[in-house]
């Protein structure tokens, strides 16, 4: 019994797909923001996985460093998105993003 690159990459793909679903199919701004975060997280997991199990082990510090930077970018994007969501809510008193808003 072992765990390697494949298992972690599969999870990374599932996280990315869940994030993409949240952005495409859901209409709540909050859930969309969560979806973007999941997509960033998925990328970071893949970088760490390749640094630990794959060819990235040649430069083992690059993968975790990219994961750290991607996480920070995600947090910054979340802050901006939260500010936009607050303005959105002030306008229409809900988080829904669709043409029915008028």
């Amino acid at each position, binding site marked *: *019994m*072992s*765990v*390697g*690159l494949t*298992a*972690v990459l599969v*999870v990374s793909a*599932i996280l990315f797909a*869940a*994030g993409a*679903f*949240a952005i495409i199919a*859901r*209409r*709540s701004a*909050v*859930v969309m923001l*969560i979806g973007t*975060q*999941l997509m960033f*997280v998925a990328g970071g*997991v893949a970088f*760490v996985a390749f640094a*630990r*199990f*794959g*060819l990235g*082990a*040649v430069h*083992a*510090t690059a*993968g*975790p*460093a990219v*994961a*750290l*930077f991607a*996480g*920070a*970018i*995600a*947090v*910054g994007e*979340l*802050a901006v998105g*939260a*500010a936009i*969501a*607050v303005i959105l*809510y*002030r306008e229409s*008193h*809900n*988080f*829904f993003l*669709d043409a*029915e*808003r*008028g």
Partner: protein
Amino acid sequence: MLESDAVPLIGGLPAAITSPPIVLFIYAVLVLMVVSAVTSVMVRNTLWAIGSFASTMALLALLYLAIAPFVVFAVQLLVYTTISAGLLLGLLRRTSGLDWTADSPFNRQWLAGAAVCAALLALIGVVVAATSWPVRVSGGEVGLGDALTTTYVVGVATVVVLLAASALGLGLLLAAPTPAIPRWGGSTTSRRDLPRGGSRARGETR
């Protein structure tokens, strides 16, 4: 020297993790992380979605504990999880409110899944308690600190500025007084209180 042919590369790649408790731990964390991530994008209640997302980030930190340098685990758990969850909770508090809605966020069929998740979480707890920590399972721990302060120093400085700005925004969001306006609840699919009634004709959930 690694070659482009796939066959020689197999012997040259780092070995997979084979220690049974660590393997169990990683698989349990992976399964729970997938479940919580899918829950966060599927559930109808915003507060539950944020809670599931926060648990996803915390489980990701546990995964990094096993396959990444310790500093990545610490930053993920203490900084990214905290600021992300805080921003989303502050957003909800500032707008629709954190009131607990009477509607159940789940279907009853989800209770069985929740029971399975609880069992996996208990397994993680048993493995963590039974394993002699610290266990050196990551291969890239040596040199990350040096790399961050030498090769990636500009990136680290940029990250610090970004995180500081995000933390400042979090503080302002949480410190802002709760607006005294009528609330429309925390549900992402509750349309009955909306001022415009056009969406009810569609009959679809969000």
